[in-house]
């Protein structure tokens, strides 16, 4: 037994968990009870009851956090179903447009109220205070942000816009209720497209053992990413960002790199758990990541990172603004608006907006650079050959990665002062060299070296390499046949990975980063 009784740890726990009902979050013990129960009942009941059962399960999942906010989902689901119906059945274009605008206002007003009220009020008072026209302490309203509101609001907007554009609406209210509340993607996406989802609810699949195989693999992969990698990296990032004022440059780099990988493992781990959970129920939700840190440019990065958000922003913001159809200036203006709002979507704070604008700047520079290279390439074949070389590719990946590390610094920092201090520290090359020499006495570096990350990070890297490397496919094929033929091996493997996840987990349960959005 470890510490059967130590009231000091108890007091830590109380501050961490707070009061109220226990939440069924993906990385909780409750979810390990919830999912098998839902899985068992779902496949045991007749097919005609499955959608209604999943709606009930999804509401239970969401309401375990704050029961009252279940009403918010009910209300938004009802009004958006109504808007979809009105848009689809209206004859006149202007009537359709009126319903669409009303629907957009309703959804955006809801998002604005819950997410941006305090941001707007605080910004207003900050400006007035700075101008000296008001002398008031900042106003703050006690508004609790509903989990996942940014995600399901975007799904509702996508739904009514697509119906306005001519798509068929969902006719069965229960199917729409499930689209709106489906627990594997409810809290932090991926942002679903209703056409894909409707096809699945209208043709519910029969039980297939492949769902268990593939779903379990995704679940284990997700838990490993989140708990064994993300949460441990999070501890290092958290310590590094807290003590930023006294960090050596090496520690600042370590903290920033730790956050760079933490946010990836945290979010892609969440997505894997969500996708795996959905697959166990015979549903497919879209992928969200495609090895984003191997992107060769900022544009490529956004094609690989949070793909469901990137494509949503493209389809429902960038293109409606005019996209890239009206010349360079308009294109860049649209990019700046889209990425600025993307930053604001991530968080109601100015450093998120600046994070988005920095990405816009990187996208514009990247596009200009590509255009310049294309022009040079047309007259100089050496450049064309160079661009095809693996050295060029490696350089492009490295530069893009370093740029992304700096943008994550902006994202994670509490304010611009902290971000600029840490940025300056990272460029202090003399200090970096000294810090490397004193690495053995650095608490942060020692914390990394002593953690299970020294094993789990390379192990995960090797897993990805084997999974994605062409040369290993033949070996994998042979192994797969053996694997599929041997149930005992599969069970033992799942048990072993589960134990490893638990063994590598840090002592503290860490919420998913994207839950705050």
């Amino acid at each position, binding site marked *: *037994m*470890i*510490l*059967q*009784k*130590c*009231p*000091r*740890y*108890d*007091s*830590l*726990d109380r501050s*961490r*968990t707070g009061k109220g009902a*226990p939440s069924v979050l993906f990385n*909780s*013990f*409750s979810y390990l*009870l919830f999912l098998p129960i839902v899985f068992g009942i779902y496949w045991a009941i007749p097919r005609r009851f499955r959608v209604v059962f999943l709606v009930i399960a999804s509401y239970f999942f969401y309401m375990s956090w704050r029961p009252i906010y279940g009403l918010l989902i009910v209300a938004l689901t009802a009004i958006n179903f109504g808007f979809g119906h009105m848009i689809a059945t209206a004859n006149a274009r202007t009537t359709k447009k009126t319903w669409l605008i009303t629907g957009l206002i309703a959804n955006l007003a809801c998002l604005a109220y819950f997410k941006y009220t305090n941001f707007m009020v605080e910004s207003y008072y900050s400006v007035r205070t700075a101008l000296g026209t008001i002398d008031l302490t900042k106003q703050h309203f006690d508004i609790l942000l509903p989990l996942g509101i940014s995600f399901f609001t975007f799904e509702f907007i996508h739904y009514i816009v697509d119906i306005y554009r001519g798509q068929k609406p969902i006719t069965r209210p229960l199917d729409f209720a499930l689209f709106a509340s489906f627990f594997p993607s409810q809290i932090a996406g991926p942002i679903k497209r209703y056409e894909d989802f409707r096809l699945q609810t209208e043709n519910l699949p029969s039980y297939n053992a492949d769902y268990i195989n593939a779903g379990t693999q995704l679940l284990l992969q997700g838990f490993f990413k989140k708990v064994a990698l993300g949460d441990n990296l999070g501890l290092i990032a958290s310590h590094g960002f807290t003590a930023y004022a006294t960090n050596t440059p090496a520690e600042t780099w370590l903290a920033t790199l730790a956050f760079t990988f933490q946010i990836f493992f945290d979010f892609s781990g969440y997505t894997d758990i969500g996708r795996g959970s959905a697959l166990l129920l015979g549903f497919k939700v879209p992928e969200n990541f495609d090895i984003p840190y191997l992107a060769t440019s900022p544009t490529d990065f956004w094609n690989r990172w949070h793909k469901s958000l990137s494509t949503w922003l493209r389809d429902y913001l960038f293109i409606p603004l005019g996209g890239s159809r009206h010349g360079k200036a308009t294109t860049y203006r649209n990019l700046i608006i889209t990425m600025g709002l993307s930053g604001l979507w991530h968080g109601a704070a100015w450093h998120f907006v600046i994070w988005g604008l920095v990405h816009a700047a990187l996208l514009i520079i990247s596009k200009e650079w590509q255009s310049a290279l294309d022009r040079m390439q047309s007259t100089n074949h050496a450049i064309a050959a160079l661009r095809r070389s693996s050295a060029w590719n490696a350089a492009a990946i490295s530069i893009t990665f370093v740029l992304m590390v700096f943008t994550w610094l902006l994202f994670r920092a509490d304010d611009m002062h902290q971000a600029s201090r840490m940025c300056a520290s990272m460029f202090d090359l003399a200090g970096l060299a000294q810090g490397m020499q004193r690495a053995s006495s650095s608490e942060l570096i*020692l*914390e990394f070296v*002593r*953690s*299970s990350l020294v*094993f789990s990070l390379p192990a995960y890297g090797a897993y990805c390499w084997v999974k994605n490397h062409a040369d290993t496919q033949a070996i994998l094929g042979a192994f797969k046949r053996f694997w599929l033929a*041997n*149930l*005992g*091996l599969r*069970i*033992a*493997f799942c*048990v*072993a990975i589960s*134990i*490893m996840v*638990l*063994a*590598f*987990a*840090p*002592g*503290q*349960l860490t919420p998913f980063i994207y839950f705050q959005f």
Partner: protein
Amino acid sequence: MKYLSTMVWLVIAAVLLEGLFAWLAIGEQEFLRPDTRMGTVHLRDKLVTWRLEGYSRDRLNKRGERDIEHAIDKSPETRRVILLGDSVCEALQVPMAATYARRLQGLLNDGSQKWETINLGCSGYSTGQELLALRDQGLQYKPDIVALLYSRGDSLENCVQPQTRATSEPRPYFYLGNDGSLQQDDSVLQANRRNLQSPAFLDYLRTNSHLYGVWSQVNFNLTLTDKIYNRLIKNYKQLIARFDQSQSMTQIAPAALQPQDNFAVTQKLISRFNEVCKQNNARFILMTFPDVSNLDPEFARQVPLLKQQAAAQGFEILDLSPAFRAQKHVSKMFLQVHFSEAGHAVVAQSLAEQIKKK
């Protein structure tokens, strides 16, 4: 055949995991075992790698102390200091060499005398358990000085209140009898006797198995963080208790079950500490945990009362708060709630100065 194959693969997985965890020093945080007399005691000769708060990788000695090996026999020229306390004194959060117990020995051994410090601190111990540890373990070392670290919350652990008796941690509790005398209440221990009689194979697993260590760690983390898990465990225990009449608390509890004044019991325990030390010709030094932020009004109330008690009963008291407040970076003296290496250095220095005063 299918079941046999699954079993074989599971055994292979277990062996591989055991090897991997041993190589990575994972699942080595297990360091206590149940005990029918004390509630819990340290495992003996156990390698512990601690990561919950801070980091350390050391072996508990063959007597189950978080210290280097000590001989019971004491040479005439040696002076011994016994250090008692809870997890703060045990100090798994820092390497053994950095604990105030080890540092103190270095500071005291300035050549004129040979000093030996012995750390009997154990996680979760109450003042009452520390008194029993002194009697059972400490006195056999023939100490010249006994230094007890009194921490925030300690007094809450010394006696059990009637309304929480059924859910209280199994340990010896104390109460004041009708005549004001200090009485030991082992009813909670007796009620949990069956759980506290740890079978030999479980002790073997605790000491040697990394997989068991991982399970224990997960159980501990879930107990702290997951309300559903806690509720399930509680219901399970209640179910077991329903079938086990021997666990009925009311039949075992002593007659004196009136609500107790925790701090009055604690003061009585400290008086007893002082008496035991006097009887054994040892100096008694009571150290109070540094409350640098004044976060705990109850503790702030207790410290002056303990100082009055020390003056009245003739023992020494060392309030660590001034020494900590004098540090340039006070926050660096702590990890989360326990001392950092720097914090241990301050305690060692303060205690060494206190000891050298006489």
